[in-house]
């Protein structure tokens, strides 16, 4: 296989904004390292849970699904909307992309509100037992990531308004981060909520 060793610069792309962009590669790496952070915390949670039958102390209620399920649905659906927004951006229909990204932002905020209500309804705190500590640490860290995602989405909304080539990359990279936050939530939801009801 041969490669062109003497390319003519005029024939080469300049600053690609799609998946070849270095920014996208960098985002992939950062997502990988953040995912490992959550994996380590979830592994720690299971380590404590499997080593102690009363890890969730007697009298502490099982995690409620009443709010968590709608929250999960909102967040997973927002990933779908984000995908549509990215597709619109690729097709250069920026008005639509902006509208959809705005919708994702609102869904993210809705998720955070649901989380807030849920934390408010808990009868224990971070310092009551290791179960509470794990719950507050992991869900809290995830909420922090969603908050960062919402800020990034606000940035996307502003950035789409500035008509230059770079906005493609911004939408694509923030979309990747947003999908990552959603996938992590599914892992958290299964580990901390759903598996307690099996």
């Amino acid at each position: 296989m041969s490669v062109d060793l003497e390319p003519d610069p005029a024939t080469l792309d300049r600053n690609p904004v799609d998946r070849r962009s270095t920014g996208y590669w960098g985002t992939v790496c950062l997502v990988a390292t953040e995912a490992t952070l959550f994996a380590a915390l979830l592994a720690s949670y299971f380590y404590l849970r499997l080593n102690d039958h009363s890890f969730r102390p007697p009298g502490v209620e099982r995690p409620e699904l009443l709010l968590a399920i709608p929250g999960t649905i909102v967040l997973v659906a927002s990933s779908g909307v984000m995908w549509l927004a990215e597709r619109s951006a690729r097709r250069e229909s920026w008005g639509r992309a902006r509208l959809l990204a705005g919708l994702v932002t609102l869904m993210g905020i809705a998720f955070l509100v649901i989380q807030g209500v849920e934390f408010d309804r808990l009868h224990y705190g971070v310092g009551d037992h290791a179960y509470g500590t794990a719950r507050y640490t992991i869900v809290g860290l995830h909420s922090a990531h969603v908050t960062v995602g919402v800020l990034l989405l606000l940035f996307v909304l502003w950035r789409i308004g500035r008509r230059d080539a770079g906005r493609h990359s911004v939408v694509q990279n923030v979309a990747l981060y947003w999908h990552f936050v959603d996938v992590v939530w599914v892992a958290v939801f299964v580990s901390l909520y759903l598996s307690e009801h099996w």
Partner: protein
Amino acid sequence: MPHLASDSITGAPPSDTALDDGEDLRIEDPELAELGEDGRRLRRSWEEPGGIRAWLTSVDHKSIGRRYLVTALVFFAFGGALAIVMRAQLGSPELRLVDERTYDELFSMHGITMIFLFITPAFSGFGNFLVPLMIGARDMAFPRLNALSYWLFLFAGIFLWSSVLFGTPPSSGWFNYVPLGEQPYSPGRAVAFYALGLAFVSISTTLGAVNFIVTIARMRAPGMSVGRMPVYVWAILVTSFVMLFALPVLSAGNLMLWVDRSFGGHWFDATVGGQPLLWQHVFWAFGHPDVYLIFIPATGIVSTIIPAFSRRPIVGYVLVVVSVISIGMLAFGVWAHHMFAAGLPSQSMAFFAGASLVIAVPSGIQIFAWIATMILGRVHWRVPMLYAAGFLVVFTIGGVTGVMFPAVPADLQVTDTYFVVAHFHYVLVGGAVFPMLAGLVYWFPKMTGRMLHERFGAITFWVIFVGFNLTFFPMHISGLRGMPRRVATYLPSDGVTLWNRLSTIGAVLFAIGLLMGLGDIAVSLRRGRRAGPDPWRADTLEWATTSPPRPFNFARIPRILSRHPLWDESSDTLRGQLVLPDGHQALGTTSLEAGAEDVLDMPRESWSPLLLALAAAGVFYGLLLEWPVLVGVAVAAGIAAMVLWHARSDR
């Protein structure tokens, strides 16, 4: 087998005669002159402003790499000074130079400084300086992110050492076992400095790793397919992947520790469902890969130097690369061999014992490849080669004791004794510091344009080699005689006085050797012989450009036809025609074959990395002092810095 242009490494490089001291290399650069107007435009678009502003805003990977090295060496001196105080204390039984608490602080700060502020960043420094040069690129993929990594490292180092000014340096060891590290047993800010400081420095290292991965994947000169990458570049790539997956585990641990301490959490509190052993698992799940992310770049340096001074390509390139990759992967499966004395289930111990033995295989392959390269080549015993050979000896001794630990019964005998201290200094100093010194001597001409003194360098090597062995070999014996580590003194009746005295004398000798090396650097910086582009007649691309390299590294982007571009028959094959003079530009290539793919406009010097790092320092001090206002202000400043960063990237 490539033809070698010259079989000997001559003293005076031929192209050097026209240059006098003090002359500006860039102006006299024949290659640039040849390019005429293109050359002038190239120079204009890559030159950075001078003075203090250059210092604060530069994004040139070469300045950042040199800074990383200098800063890391300063921390090396700090960590070394602590070690000397400890050795003084242990020079005789029942000395009381420092009290127990201070002694705890000494060994804790020594370990933290050496691991996190010296060895890892020093290798980042080499990588920063060398990787773009070795792959024929003009800069790292993310130049400003690179500057940010440096500033974060610097501020994290200052953060950790400011604990001394606050009067509360960490004192529970570099691995900070709980429950000792928990609030009731270590009140005050010492452990907060540890948890936050390590999280801080981890951010820097992670960003650096991302930068290396993308740079190596996307910026290699056309023709440098993965099969032609220098082993050193492979080593940095593998190290970066190890960092990407190991550091977040440490950060998870530090997050849990911080939640426990600052919010009254119970991750590690056995009374309400937590587990102290969890900290050990998390710490070593990071800590053992960390050993390899120290060792792998060191082997990369050795795999560069041994072939260069044996005048032949490395034996078994593919095997060596596969070994590096498999060490990187196995590194994640051996952590519990640090915990055999902690009471793990025996099946679990058997698994980790097996994995720890397996990792000796790829390490052994590399050692045999180096030895075979030396036997099949013609070794020139210049100073870098002395250090590389010293590394082989010292590291092999460390490896031999290393193989003893996976034998669980033997491990139980020596856990927490000086035998372990001896072992890990043989692998860390022998396995990392010797290659680092080899690399310093080897690349000093490329970094500064001057040679170090050859004879003096050889003497320095022998002082360091003897000093090192005299310091750490007796520790094997004091350890086997039962001397526990981390205890501030010992009794005359313990029977370890002689061995400790030898260690202390060795430490002084070791320090003298290092100071001699420093003196050599100080003198040679001004008075060293001019190096010329390729003083060692080596094979990798960094020697194809001026010493020190110009801001754009290569006037014409090299084209690569083999693994040893500078040993190819005709050096003309190296010279591409691509200049990209229209601005601050670099060439992007495909990740496997390195076919030319796109032209990338690279960012210029910028204040944003420094501002963002300052904001990060504000956040960490705010968390440490529990001042929410400072955290809030710093976060706002950080967002502002990021907006500035982004606004300036618009092309």
